[in-house]
């Protein structure tokens, strides 16, 4: 071999309990090369990189750096080998300046010479074309400046192999371009760079090679100039798998929820929802597909009255044809919405944080929905207790007792408790965000059946999902989000996985969008 690879992974396997996070992954990156690591959520990209940066230890397989086989047991080992990782969540001390963060933990003269350090930082910045004031405090910085500080921190420690975990997720397009400019400079300087991403256009733009992971499996590595987005998408999503989930035909559709031009801005000032419009009908399951962080959470929270909207309207239709009643939910908090007589059930992504109180038992959690009823100063525990018994019996919740804190239950049982409570309030709209995440197969099917039952009762179900196979078999229609925009709504019975995969990663051309 003429070129020694900067880093080489061979047959890496990592398991968490029974879950295989990475199985037989092999990768090679040379100096002066940018490798893009592509895959859907949960495909094991970050796990793999965490093994390089010393956070996890592989179960089997070997890692070689500069042709020598190495063992990486801690972040310190990784630093010593010249591997630097820029995490998605920055590891910076807010009240320190950029320079202070950069030298943190390093050995050297015990007195800090701030001027020398600032000069060294500026030198690195100039070499690669960064813009960073070393004496600025982190809390005064924008997200992209913080990222710059993180990258310089890694370079200052002499890293030759850089790993960037979804660096563009928090950046504006202009900032992304600037970052790519810097990455190209680093590449010219002979650094090996691995960039984790799921944005196809960026892969095509920046990388030399693309390695694709799918559900922990290593698929293949291809040269960027020999591939195209379509091929990469196919590699990423794979072929459709049949799951045999029931999908009863929708009986009678009635307009329930009409979302018009809803836009939201995040705390960082980024646009998280951009003119989202769709209609959810009673009696159908509307799936929402998209890469994590494409605006799914904000969409649910906007409907539930937890998110401030920049613009747009959320119209709730009630009553039968002829006596239609329309209410606007914008600006209402969850309590207002309930007092309007609208029963909206929200099964949030964060079950034990937003959905249930982890330290309370089933009875008390049931009571969260009903404690306001009645005029007495005392709460009525009889009805919630009855409801808890009912949920336990009907949904087969496995628990030592209905007063056992729900945190002691398994994920599937927690979800059953939550969904059971929400369904008991006889909702007309159910929003379920990733309701089967972390659940085993049987529990997942229980959840699907529950949602189908609600659908046949005429409830409008909005199902936020990540597994395309499930979405394609469960949902009547699928709304695809991409970067906070609706890239299209497709029919769940006719759409293909490839079609949705492509819509998830890039906004479709006008003609392709299937409108209702």
């Amino acid at each position, binding site marked *: 071999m003429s070129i020694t690879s900067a880093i080489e992974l061979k047959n890496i396997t990592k398991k968490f309990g029974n879950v295989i996070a990475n199985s037989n992954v092999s990768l090679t990156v040379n100096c002066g090369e940018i490798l893009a690591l592509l895959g859907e959520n949960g495909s094991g990209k970050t796990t793999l990189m965490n093994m390089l940066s010393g956070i996890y230890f592989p179960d089997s397989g070997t890692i070689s750096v500069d042709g020598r086989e190495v063992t990486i047991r801690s972040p310190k080992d990784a630093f010593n080998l010249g591997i630097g990782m820029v995490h998605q969540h920055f590891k910076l001390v807010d009240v320190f300046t950029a320079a202070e963060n950069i030298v*943190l933990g390093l050995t050297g003269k015990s007195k800090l010479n701030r001027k020398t350090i600032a000069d060294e930082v500026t030198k690195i910045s100039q070499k690669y074309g960064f813009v960073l004031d070393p004496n600025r405090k982190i809390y005064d910085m924008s997200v992209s400046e913080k990222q710059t500080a993180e990258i310089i921190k890694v370079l200052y420690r002499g890293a030759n192999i850089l790993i960037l975990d979804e660096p563009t997720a928090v950046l504006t397009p202009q900032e992304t371009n600037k970052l790519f400019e810097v990455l190209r400079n680093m590449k010219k300087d002979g650094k090996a760079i691995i960039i984790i991403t799921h944005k196809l256009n960026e892969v095509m733009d920046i990388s030399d090679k693309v390695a694709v992971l799918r559900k922990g499996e290593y698929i293949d590595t291809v040269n960027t100039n020999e591939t195209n987005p379509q091929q990469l998408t196919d590699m990423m999503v794979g072929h459709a798998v049949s799951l045999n989930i029931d999908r009863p035909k929708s009986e009678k559709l009635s307009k329930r929820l009409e979302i018009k031009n809803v836009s939201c801005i995040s705390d960082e000032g980024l646009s998280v929802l951009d003119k989202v419009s769709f209609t959810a009908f009673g009696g159908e399951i509307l799936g929402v597909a998209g890469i994590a962080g494409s605006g799914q959470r904000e969409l649910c929270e906007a409907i539930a009255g937890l998110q401030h909207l920049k613009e747009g309207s959320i119209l709730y239709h009630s009553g039968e044809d002829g006596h239609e009643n329309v209410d606007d939910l914008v600006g209402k908090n969850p309590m207002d919405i309930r007092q309007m007589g609208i029963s909206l059930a929200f099964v949030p992504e964060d079950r034990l944080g937003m959905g249930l109180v982890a330290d309370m038992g089933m009875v008390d959690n049931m009571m969260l929905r009903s404690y306001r009823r009645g005029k007495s100063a005392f709460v009525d525990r009889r009805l919630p207790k009855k409801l808890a018994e009912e949920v336990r019996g009907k949904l087969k919740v496995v628990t030592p007792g209905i007063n056992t804190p729900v945190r002691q239950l398994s994920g599937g049982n927690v979800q059953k408790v939550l969904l059971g409570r929400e369904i008991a309030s006889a909702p007309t709209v159910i929003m379920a965000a990733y309701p089967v995440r972390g659940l085993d197969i049987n529990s997942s099917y229980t959840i699907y059946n529950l949602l189908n039952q609600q659908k046949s009762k005429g409830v409008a179900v909005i199902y936020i999902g990540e597994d395309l196979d499930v979405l394609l078999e469960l949902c009547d229609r699928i709304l695809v989000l991409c970067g906070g925009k609706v890239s299209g709504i497709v029919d769940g019975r006719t759409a293909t996985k490839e079609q949705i995969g492509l819509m998830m990663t890039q906004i479709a051309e006008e003609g392709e969008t299937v409108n209702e």
Partner: protein
Amino acid sequence: MSEIIIKLFIAAILAGTPLLFGTVGEILTEKSGNLNLGVEGMMFMGGVVGLAGSYYYEQLVINPVGWVSITIAIICAFLCGAFGAFIYGVLTISFHANQNVTGLALTIFGTGFGNFFGEVMGNASGASYVAVSATTKLAFSKGISGLSAIPVVGPLLFSYNVMVYLAIAIAVIMSWILSHTRVGLNLRAVGENPATADATGINVTRYKYISTCMGGGICALGGLYIVMVTCSGVWVNNCISGYGWLALALVIFATWSPLRAMICALVFGVLSVMRLYVPLGIPMQIYDIFPYIATVIVLVAVSFKKNRENQPPASLGNAFFREER
């Protein structure tokens, strides 16, 4: 008039010094992210053990030397306070116990420890109280002999006992270490964001233990000061009487800066001795309330200020688990 002001200033310094010890000791502890509410307890422990050190040294030697006695007292007090903080550290740092509860327990333990051994020593001495000899007493109260004779400047700057200068030196050195050295930077990072500090290779546990134990030792010197200077080397039951709690409030007043702690301790010193020097024609009890009213006002004022710089260490009071990355 100016004479009264000089006298008030001197008295304030003398009254504020034990608070300064407690405050800078707790600042050092809190900079590592540990909130140790046991300052009062550690002061009791330091006070009684420091006194015991001097007392038994005098019993053992025929001609006790003042400076040796002081050194022994300071070392004993420091070690005992550090030991109290070490117990706290084992529980909170290694076993992740609740810091507030552990600190309160340390206060209760230290108070009992101090009063019990003070009593025991008193009974054993045959005089029903324990007191150090005049030599040690003098060593703990005399100023810098030559310089304190200079008019005005002499009494203002050079008339204090050695503990006062020690407290100021600790505050100044600590401030320099925190802001100008790598060790200080690393320590502050541990208190702000231990996960980040850990990721950069800093030994979080070691930093927490060392700063908590040293902080406890410094707090204990405040207790020694109360016993040796305020109470003139005699053990008085419950002598610390809330100074540890005042020191805790002063940490917030000083917004975690050892230099500001000096000014704050002086202000509190003035408030606590004012009734002797500034006749306002109000009942004594009102004067006694001043330091506490000031504490309340300061706590409210500090909480209103939305300045990112003068905030408590971000992870103050939280245990650090490495697995929770």
